């Protein structure tokens, strides 16, 4: 089993894992980064969303071999001290309830803001409709994304690029 190398939250990592093992379980069980969540195992709910080379990816359905040589960012590495525009907006709007889906919501929203500076409601629907929240924080998520876009424009931080 050859070691698989990739850059995780800015630092080079090497893991001994079966290439078919989903990135989610490498992060959670092998590397102990539990901020990325298991929700469905079939890329249906978005709880496991991470960034691979800046793109939002469902880590539960991403074989770890496929990220070899790439940059992986998880919720723990999105920004130092939770200062990205999306995280600040999430705190300001008091978005989470149970909080379990929020890592995935935040990672998906951060990728949206990076691509679309002032997303419309339709952009938000399109980007976020595959991230499930059972507690019902959708209205707050929408408000927080609009706020994050403004914060990002005013004072961008690391994690917003």
């Amino acid at each position, binding site marked *: 089993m050859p070691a698989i190398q990739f850059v995780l939250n800015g630092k080079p990592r090497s893991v001994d894992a079966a290439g078919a093992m989903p990135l989610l379980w490498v992060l959670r069980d092998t590397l102990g980064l539990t901020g990325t*969540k298991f929700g469905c195992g079939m890329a249906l709910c978005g709880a496991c969303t991470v960034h691979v080379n800046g793109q939002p990816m469902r880590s539960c359905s991403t074989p770890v071999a496929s990220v070899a040589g790439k940059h992986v960012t998880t919720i723990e590495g999105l920004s130092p001290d939770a200062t990205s525009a999306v995280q600040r907006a999430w705190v300001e709007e008091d978005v989470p309830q*149970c909080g379990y889906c929020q890592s995935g919501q935040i990672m998906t929203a951060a990728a949206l803001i990076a691509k679309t500076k002032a997303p419309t409601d339709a952009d938000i629907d399109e980007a976020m409709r595959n991230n499930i929240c059972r507690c019902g924080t959708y209205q707050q998520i929408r408000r927080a994304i609009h706020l994050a876009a403004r914060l990002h424009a005013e004072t961008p931080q690391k994690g917003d690029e």
Partner: protein
Amino acid sequence: MTPAKGLDRRSFLKTAAASGLLLGFHLPGSRTARAETADARLNAWVHVAPDDTVTLYIHKAEMGQGTVTSLAMLLAEELECDWARVHTEFPGIDRAYGGNQGVVGSQSVRSSWEPLRRAGASARQMLVQAASQQWGVDAAQCQARNGVVINSATGAKLSYGALADAAAKLTPPANVPLKDPSQFTIIGKPRKRLDTPSKVNGSAQFGIDVRLPGMLYAVVARCPVFGGKVASFDATKAKAMPGVKHVVQISNGVAVVAENTWAAAQARKALEVKFDEGQWAGQSSAGIAKLFVEKSQQPGAVARKDGDAAGVLAGAAKKIEAVYEAPYLAHAPMEPLNATADVRSDSCEVWASTQGQSAAHQVAIQVTGLKPDQVKVHTCYMGGGFGRRARADYIGEAVEVSKAIGAPVQLVWTREDDMQQDWYRPASYTKFVGSVGTDGMPEALHSRVICAPFGGLRDGVSRTGVEGIMDMPYAIPNLLVDYHAADVGIPVSYWRSVGYSQNTFFAESFIDELAVAAGKDALEFRRALLGKQPRMLAALNLAAEKAGWGKPLPAGRGRGIAVVNNIGSYTAQIAEVSASNGKLRVHKVVCAVDCGHVVNPSGVEQQIQSGIVYGLSAALKGSITIDKGRVQQDNFHNYDVLRIDEMPVVEVHIVPSTANPGGIGEAAVPPIAAAVANALYAANGKRVRTLPLAVLNR
């Protein structure tokens, strides 16, 4: 708020008692607080540390409902501490309590409303007394404010932290007076949640995030038919899979234990298990529906009888009949079920996201045979609960596996396990016969309910089967509710708002049918029947006013009303929907609630939104069906839930109230299905009597 690692009750008490003021008390029903820790009834503590930190150790749990924030507000209101220095911790459970530890039935604020304020007041009074002794002045000259005691004559100040050790030596006061609500500065004002910061950076520790040294991961192969058992199994291929450490049989199936969750799940696919499927192997949704129809032909056990409904209906000039049906529902919390256990010869520790710490403690005692004080349960954040996590079945499995392999283990249910092995919201069937008199008001209503029971029968009636129908708030002179328990082999249990979840849909839809039959406006009809229910009526009136009831809508749109009185609160909802090209769309929901004295208005708003989303997912999409004894749905592609692009605008309006607090976590779930169905009827004249409503789109 770091709930899990290394925190057990005795060690925190020891550490906390070593310095500062530690005051233990009992929730609910506290009488007197005590500055000691030996009383078995104590289940909550407030600790004021020398560094001014105030920690509330609370025997509740957080599943998103905002409980820890609301409870901390109750304490802080009377303690007069600095909100920025308030923390909460879950002490967990490590011996039998006098009371039950858990979070069900939207109880937390209701049961803590007085005792928590009294605990805060007691601690404050001790700190004030310590200051007065230090200054040698009368306590009346000392004022507590924002974490400091001020000498009103000299202006001198002492922080709570500086006073905590001296306060700990004093006797807690008896019968400490509480503030008049008009003096509240924290209760009733919106507060941000204490747990938000940890939930935006991945650091909040849910049960599934527990990591112990040497911990292994397990999944279980269970019989796909409820009540079935393992007949035999061959683990040869599974054991040969990479990373697999053990394959062991437990009472509920065969567990595969591996180095990581994925390896365990892969190996489970290679496991060959023969099941004895038992008596329900032929069960199906069609068979259950047929049984319900058969039962509905016969009188059931009487749940309520006012006047002579049968007699009035027999001679009624205008009689309306309808049958309503609701399917089984899974809970599907975002965090799949899991538990972590470390069983040793003389101890057992359990880490779990659970709504029932006491149930978890009990099951671990049963499985291990250990004494109550040898078993510890650590309370973790829950990624949703919705009633599912009140059951301890998944916790018992983890304890069994750890005991069998002699190592710490995290047992994880996949999403497929979660949906196919749930304790479901029961399928239910209700036949209504009603009549309206010449005055256009209802004369009689007979409701016959067929639903699987749980929680026991009293005189043949399951309360959870008939709640929402038996106790509907309307004054109808002749009422008969009868009930058939129909055990069809599918495990059923509490699902957010329980019997109200389906029965309020039935009752509020049929009331609309009666209004139509009477030729009356749905709002006026209800108003006329709520004369003896002033709180329900006030909530309805507020919702109607805010929703603009009666104002014209574009073609194809309609508004619908539904109300409920459950968990001590009164909720009215008005939904606005459109139905065009076969597509049902919920545009807006206006919700008014009277939940008594509000502790955290933003928490109330969050929970109303939450209840509406949870209820709307079920109303529009939710259905678990059975074939060959098996659940046919297994993940979010065939058990879909509401998405952000389907989210209506939700407006929340709170009826001002000084009544004791009601619950809120389950208040908004029951009415939404009926509000939407009634709005749909207003929009296009189609009466849908079977959930989920979105079926009409196919």
